[in-house]
């Protein structure tokens, strides 16, 4: 099994134990993907973590986009903006950095 800073990850790089998550792990995952985490990235990562805490699921991209539009405005709640931040997909890559499981229904 692979690990990131000592935390076990699955074959797609998602944390096996969600409680292992730290900001340092998120930063290391981003570095491995050549992404420099900005405040805008952290807004989305924190949103995903709050969403998971409240609903116990990682939201589908469509739901994530709509929910971000509602809370942070349309200029951020659109897929172009979110894909600019997370080129491998706001659901898949965003959830991985946030220490969440792969979104339900994400292929």
């Amino acid at each position: 099994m692979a690990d990131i800073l000592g935390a076990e990850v699955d074959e797609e790089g998602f944390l096996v134990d969600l409680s292992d998550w730290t900001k340092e792990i998120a930063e290391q995952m981003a570095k491995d993907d050549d992404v420099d985490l900005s405040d805008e990235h952290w807004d989305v990562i924190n949103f995903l973590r709050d969403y998971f805490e409240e609903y116990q699921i990682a939201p589908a991209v469509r739901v994530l986009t709509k929910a971000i539009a509602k809370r942070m405005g349309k200029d951020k709640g659109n897929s172009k903006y979110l894909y600019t931040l997370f080129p491998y997909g706001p659901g898949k890559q965003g959830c991985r950095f946030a220490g969440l499981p792969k979104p339900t229904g994400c292929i």
Partner: protein
Amino acid sequence: MATKKFMYLNRRSSFGTVYAIESLEVVLIAAAFEQDVSLAFIDDGVYQIVEGQNADGIGMKNFSKTFHALGDYDINKLYVSAESLEERGLNVDDLMPLAYEDEDDDWAEKPSIKVVSNAQLSKIMSEQDVCLSF
């Protein structure tokens, strides 16, 4: 792709078997295909949406919280059998206040749960293209 009417029947309580959580997972996956989806809660299935569930003692995820996300997935028809509630000494106030925001009505928050008689439920079931029972 033509829209079909899908109904998911939930007949068992939240924990003890995997039926309840598996049903919810299938519902969330199927939601991506933008079909007309409704859920029905019959028999012990009504326990799935009772307010105040706590799974800490059995080491399971309290997935009842996930029902609150269904509105975000445009799933807003949750039919509950009146007879099944009554047989278990429950009423609608014992259930989670599940709601959705109506896009066509200035995002007004509306309840998703509809308590119906078994006769009404069987009529709604007969109007479906697909019924999946869990």
